[in-house]
C-alpha cells in the first residue's frame, strides 16, 4: 500500500501537471513551429496571478482559476504580439532564442512584482486525507488535481475535434501554408493556441503550487519534464503530450521506490535526471515519439 500511497498517487498527480504543461508546449510547437522555452513562465505567471486573486477575493484557488486563465491568456497573446509576431517568418532557432529571453524577462517581472519568497495557497490548516479500504490514503487536493486535469484534457479534446477553431488548429499544425490557401485566418488560430496553452499552463502552475508551494523558479524547473513529456509523446501531438506527461511523472516518482532492497532505487534527488534520461533515450530510440510527432 505504501507503493500506491507514496509513489503511484504522487506520480499520477505530478504526471497530470506535466501533461497539462506539455500539451501547451506541443500545441505551440505544432502550430507556431518553435520550442517555447518560456512556457514554464506562463505556468509561473498563472500561479502567481491566481495567488493574488485568491488574496484579493478570499476564494479557493480552484474558483479563481478561470479568471487567472483569462489574465494569463492575455499576457501570452500580448507577448506573442509584441515579441514573437515580428519573427513569424524567421527561422525557428531565432524564435527559440527569443523565447529564452522572454523566459528571463517574465521571471524577473514576477520577482519584481511578487518578490522572491515562497508562497502557499493553503492557510496552514491541515486537511486529513480520505482513507479508503482502511489502507488507501487519498488527500483531497490530489483527488481534485487529478480530476480537474482529466476534465481539462477532455475539454481540450472536444475543442480540437469538435470546434471550427480546434479543427483549424490541427489543420494549421498539419500545414500552415495550406491553411492559408484554404482561407483560414492563421493569426486567429495562433491567438487561440496561446489562449489554450496559457490556460492549461495556469492550471498546471496552480496545481503544482497547491501540491507544494509557489516560488519564482517553479516554471523553470518544470521546463525539462514538460519538454521530456512532449518529446516522449511526439512533439506537436497534444494527445501524445498527455500520455508523455503521465509517463514522465510516474517514472520520476516510481524511480525512488525501493524496488530492490530497502533503499530507493534512485535517490529522489535525481528525479529531474529521470525526465532527462527518458528524453535522451526517446530521442535516440524513437525521435518521432510514441505518437509519431515531427522530427527536425
Amino acid at each position: 500500500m505504501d507503493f500506491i500511497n507514496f509513489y503511484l498517487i504522487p506520480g499520477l498527480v505530478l504526471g497530470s501537471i506535466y501533461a497539462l504543461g506539455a500539451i501547451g508546449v506541443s500545441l505551440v510547437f505544432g502550430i507556431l513551429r518553435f520550442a517555447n522555452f518560456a512556457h514554464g513562465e506562463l505556468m509561473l505567471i498563472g500561479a502567481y496571478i491566481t495567488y493574488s486573486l485568491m488574496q484579493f477575493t478570499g476564494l479557493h484557488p480552484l474558483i479563481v482559476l478561470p479568471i487567472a486563465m483569462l489574465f494569463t491568456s492575455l499576457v501570452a497573446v500580448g507577448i506573442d504580439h509584441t515579441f514573437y509576431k515580428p519573427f513569424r517568418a524567421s527561422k525557428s532557432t531565432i524564435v527559440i532564442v527569443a523565447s529564452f529571453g522572454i523566459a528571463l524577462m517574465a521571471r524577473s517581472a514576477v520577482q519584481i512584482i511578487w518578490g522572491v519568497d515562497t508562497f502557499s495557497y493553503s492557510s496552514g490548516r491541515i486537511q486529513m486525507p480520505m482513507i479508503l479500504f482502511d489502507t488507501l490514503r487519498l488527500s483531497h487536493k490530489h483527488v481534485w488535481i487529478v480530476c480537474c486535469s482529466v476534465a481539462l484534457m477532455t475539454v481540450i479534446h472536444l475543442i480540437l475535434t469538435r470546434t471550427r477553431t480546434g479543427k483549424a488548429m490541427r489543420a494549421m499544425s498539419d500545414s500552415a501554408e495550406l491553411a492559408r490557401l484554404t482561407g483560414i485566418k492563421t493569426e486567429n488560430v495562433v491567438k487561440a493556441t496561446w489562449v489554450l496553452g496559457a490556460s492549461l499552463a495556469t492550471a498546471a502552475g496552480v496545481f503544482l503550487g497547491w501540491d507544494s508551494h509557489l516560488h519564482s523558479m517553479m516554471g523553470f524547473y518544470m521546463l525539462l519534464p514538460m519538454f521530456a513529456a512532449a518529446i516522449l509523446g511526439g512533439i506537436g501531438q497534444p494527445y501524445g503530450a498527455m500520455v508523455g506527461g503521465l509517463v514522465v511523472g510516474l517514472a520520476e516518482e516510481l524511480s525512488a521506490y525501493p524496488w530492490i532492497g530497502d533503499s530507493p532505487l534512485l535517490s529522489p534527488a535525481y528525479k529531474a535526471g529521470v525526465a532527462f534520461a527518458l528524453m535522451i533515450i526517446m530521442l535516440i530510440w524513437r525521435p518521432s515519439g510514441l505518437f509519431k510527432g515531427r522530427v527536425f
Partner: protein
Amino acid sequence: MPVLSIDNLSGGYGEADILHGVSLEINAGEIVVVIGPNGAGKSTAMKAVFGLLRLSGGSVHLAGEEITNMDPAEVVNKGVCYVPQTNNVFPTLTVHENLEMGAYIRKDDFRPRLQEIYEMFPPLAEKKRQAAGELSGGQRQMVAMGKALMLEPTLLMLDEPTAGLSPIYRNEIFQIVRQINDSGVPILMVEQNAKQSLAVASRGYVLVDGQNRTTGKGTDLLNDPEIAKMFLGG
C-alpha cells in the same frame, strides 16, 4: 471582362526571377490549360495569383479588381480556390474534416454542399472518417478538389491534378474537371499530361522559360506540329 487576367507578370521566390512577363487570361466558362517543360514557371504563375511570390512587375486582376500581392486568405475570400500539386490535404484530419476546412470561410449552412461533394466523389463518402493522409494518391486528389469545391468557387485553379496518378484515376480526374466546368466554374489548370488536358481545354497556353511561347484553342495546340514535337511525344 475576363474572370482572371494576369498581365506581364515577373517575379520569383528569391533573388532571381522565374517569371519574365507572363500573361494569361481566363474567361467565364472556360477551361484554360497551361503546359510547358519543367521549370517553365507554370506552377509559379499560379502561386503568383495567390500572393505567394515576390513580384517584380505586372499585375493580377480578378473580374476587373486588382488582387496583385493580396494575402492568400483574402484571395480565397474573393472566391478563388487553389489546389496545390503536393501537400494539398491536411493528412491528420479526416476526409470529412478536410471538407469542413474547405468551407472554413463560409458562414452559411454548407451541409447540402457537403452532400453534393460526396455524390461527386463517391469513394470519399465511404472514407469520411479516415485520416486523409491514409488514402491513395487518387483519393487524396479527390479530397483536395472536394475541399476546394466546398466554397462553390468563382474560379478553380488546379496544379497538376493528375501528377503521379494511375491512368484510371487520371481519366476520372479529367472527367471530374469537365463535370465541374459544366456546372459553370471556370478552371485554370497546369498539366504535364498535355494531350489529355488540351483535349478538355477551351484554350491552352504554352510557357517556356517563364515567358509565353504560344497560345490558342486546345484542339489547335494539339494539332500544332511544333507543340506536338515538344510535349506530346511526336
